């Protein structure tokens, strides 16, 4: 969580080192927007986190992306400029609203920033959100860096009002999170209308009204096509090496400029509707054309449909991030290998250099933090036999990994509920005795899980739901939500009572348990009992994320090496503060060979949660006599 204090925005003309997300936030503020809303999601989260710091603007964490878009729509209808931000999968959630607001049009400029996690830094899939522009008949802007993100976000508000259409600002990881120099400007005070104008034929989308909007939308398509043809955001950069002309957009443009500095380039910033005349113009300047775009062959397909011959995904990958190395390698053949290195990119020398092979090294996957309240849950689940566990999206997805391996599915936000019910209702003969467990976090539950639980209750599913309430949106860096009791600014806000909520959804009161996950025996007993009993139940764990200020650090533990028997039980907890110091082979009285793992504890990382202590039969884990003094010098900024 950022410091909730407002900042004094740097004056116009300041040259700042900004990420794409920070630059968009600045532009939204400068555009005079009054309302901004989002649900956190990598790589989009920092847009709203930063907007929260600007004065004279209402900013909120919404419960999900659909609500955030609806809030922004309402503000636009009220005459204000409005903004919402989301990651690519968030737009799937919000798309229901999107597909109708495109018909009504808008009043105050409405900008939808959607951040595609190209390259899977923290997502369950990879999507090309530019499709939504085609699907919803909306303009799409594609910035290539922070300065462009800033400029295009400003332009997006103007375009939105000019064409009465929401504008999609399509970001990608390599725009959101790259920091570069950005020059900022002055804030404008801008309001389109001073009141909401009642106009049922426009705003009440019943069939009789809605159908009249469709022809208008098609007329708007034509006007937008004319606009992209003459937009300064689309330009041809002449080049002396005319063997290939590049058509490119977004972050890919930077890779093209880097790799082929002398080639002619059609740089598309306002990329939908496609300005086809510019493509033809480029075709006259180059022997052949190639489209370089992340990720799907959208522009390529549209250009081909116009009868123009282009290359694209026949030479370049249709998934993952592009890079100078990928471009060089992918296009070397097209150019004739020998020339690729020296003639096309004189300042880059790669082909002639014998590259070193990577050294073989262990992976370092993300882990749960020491004392994470999810850890005991997955430790317990890993000890449970004959169980299918549907999981969800958040830190607890890590429960699928070693050592717990206690999460069997992860599909989309809130899907643990419906999937669990389906696993129950669709079970085959071999699964007759299987217990079904669903695991979901507090914020994901409020985002899209509640409806699924209602379905489980309503349809009497045999599902035990573990609702892990850690009072924060953990995986995205600790944002507030309606379960945390604070708003985006860190101010107190009404806090959801999860026990009451699930009871209201139809779970029997005696099947709802609120418990402390650090008490392993209680957790284990409750889980075993509830999974044995038919019908739905909910177990709510109520200890906060260790990275929040709600978490209380306790006295750390250490291992008495003379008492450690090497049984390895504590290692199965999965705490990163427990380290194996040596392994030994031993023969059990039964004659079976076992491997012993003797451990110690990183006392500087241990916060005394006590889970490992409960797994240690010989009582070899004890408090460190005096806590080593931990100076809070703070060299590392929180939230790194």
């Amino acid at each position: 969580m950022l410091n909730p204090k407002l900042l004094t925005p740097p004056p116009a003309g300041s040259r700042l080192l900004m990420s794409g997300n920070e630059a968009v936030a600045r532009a939204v503020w400068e555009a005079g927007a009054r309302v901004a809303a989002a649900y956190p999601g990598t790589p989009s989260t920092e847009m709203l986190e930063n907007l929260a710091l600007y004065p004279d603007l209402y900013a909120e964490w919404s419960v999900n992306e659909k609500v955030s878009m609806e809030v922004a729509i309402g503000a636009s209808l009220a005459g204000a400029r409005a903004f919402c931000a989301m990651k690519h999968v968030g737009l799937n959630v919000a798309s229901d609203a999107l597909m109708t607001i495109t018909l009504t049009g808008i009043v105050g400029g409405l900008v939808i920033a959607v951040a595609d996690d190209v390259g899977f830094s923290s997502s369950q899939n990879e999507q090309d959100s530019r499709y939504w522009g085609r699907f919803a008949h909306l303009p799409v802007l594609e910035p290539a860096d922070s300065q462009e993100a800033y400029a295009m976000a400003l332009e997006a508000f103007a375009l939105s009002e000019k064409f009465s259409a929401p504008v999609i600002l399509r970001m990608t990881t390599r725009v959101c999170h790259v920091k570069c120099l950005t020059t900022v400007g002055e804030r404008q005070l801008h309001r389109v209308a001073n009141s909401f104008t009642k106009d049922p034929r426009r705003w009440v989308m019943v069939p009789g009204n809605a159908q009249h909007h469709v022809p208008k939308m098609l007329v708007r398509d034509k006007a937008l096509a004319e606009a992209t043809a003459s937009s300064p955001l689309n330009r041809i950069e002449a080049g002396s090496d005319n063997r290939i002309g590049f058509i490119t957009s977004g972050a890919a443009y930077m890779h093209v400029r880097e790799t082929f500095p002398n080639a002619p380039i059609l740089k598309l910033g306002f990329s939908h509707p496609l300005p086809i005349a510019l493509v033809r113009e480029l075709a006259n300047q180059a022997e052949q054309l190639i489209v370089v775009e992340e990720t799907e062959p959208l522009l390529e397909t549209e250009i081909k449909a116009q009868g123009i011959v282009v290359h694209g995904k026949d030479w370049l990958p249709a998934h993952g991030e592009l890079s100078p190395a990928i471009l060089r390698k992918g296009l070397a053949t097209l150019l004739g290998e020998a020339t690729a290195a020296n003639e096309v990119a004189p300042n880059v020398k790669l082909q002639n250099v014998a590259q070193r092979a990577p050294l073989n090294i262990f992976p370092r996957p993300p882990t749960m933090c020491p004392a994470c309240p999810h850890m005991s849950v997955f430790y317990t689940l890993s000890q449970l036999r004959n169980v299918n566990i549907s999981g969800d999206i958040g830190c607890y997805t890590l429960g699928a990994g070693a050592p717990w391996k206690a999460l069997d599915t992860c599909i989309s936000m809130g899907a643990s509920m419906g999937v669990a019910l389906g696993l129950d209702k669709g079970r085959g003969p071999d699964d007759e005795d299987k217990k079904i467990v669903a695991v979901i976090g507090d914020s994901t539950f409020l985002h899209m899980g509640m409806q699924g639980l209602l379905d489980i209750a309503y349809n009497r599913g045999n599902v035990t739901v573990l609702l892990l309430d850690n009072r924060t949106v953990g995986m995205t860096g600790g944002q507030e939500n309606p379960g945390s009791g604070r708003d985006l600014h860190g101010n107190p806000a009404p806090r959801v009572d999860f026990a009451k909520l699930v009871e209201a959804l139809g779970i029997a009161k005696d099947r709802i348990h609120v418990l402390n996950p650090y008490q392993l025996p209680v957790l284990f007993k409750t889980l075993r009992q509830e999974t044995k009993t038919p019908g739905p139940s909910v177990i709510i764990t109520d200890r906060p994320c260790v990275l929040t200020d709600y978490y209380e650090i306790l006295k750390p533990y250490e291992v008495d090496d003379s008492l450690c028997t090497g049984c390895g039980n504590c290692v199965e907890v999965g705490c990163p503060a427990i380290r194996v110091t040596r392994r030994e082979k031993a023969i059990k009285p039964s004659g079976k060979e076992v491997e012993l793992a003797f451990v110690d504890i990183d006392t500087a990382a241990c916060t005394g949660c006590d889970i490992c202590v409960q797994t240690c039969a010989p009582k070899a884990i004890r408090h460190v006599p005096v806590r080593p003094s931990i100076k809070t010098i703070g060299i590392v900024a929180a939230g790194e």
Partner: protein
Amino acid sequence: MTTSHQVLNILVVGVGGQGVMTASEVLCETAILQGFDAKKTEMAGMSQRGGVVSSHVRFGPKIFSPEIACGEADILVAFETAEAMRWCHYLRPNGVAMVNRLHLEPPVVSLGLFPYPTHPVEEIRKHGIRIHDFDGSAIALELGDKRLVNTVMMGAISENLPFAPEVLKERIVERFRVRKPALAELNAQAFERGREAAREAAPA
């Protein structure tokens, strides 16, 4: 080493929480103040959870792509030894590696699923890489806090930059003067100790 190259590519790597991103940000800011164009990027979506962090810093007259291509890093700054192994093939021939001789074993090693290399520094050296290795974390601890390690590492690379080491040092100290003035002097010391350590650890 930098004068012959128009663009300087610095790859800063480590484990989530070590201060990699802060270090690369300071580098980027300093370069900009010196009149360079600069970009920085990283893959750190889940680094807070103890994962790998790699931060690319590029500066020069004009920077387009923010990414350092494999085989084109001029300097590798590694906050942890295994991470130096993971990324050292990104160095160009004659590139230089500044490596903190710290071993952070992830749970997958503790669980016995993978070994931690026995002689990581030697493996890197055998790979034909000029490596300066030293115990930056010990220096940081000696000065009072292991989190000083990122300033130690900045001191370590400071003599390989296209501007005077004092410029980078002043920028770091200035950041602390604004945010946590009590730590400004301590960071100045950490910087100088890192500079010394790298010099002493220079490969033969």
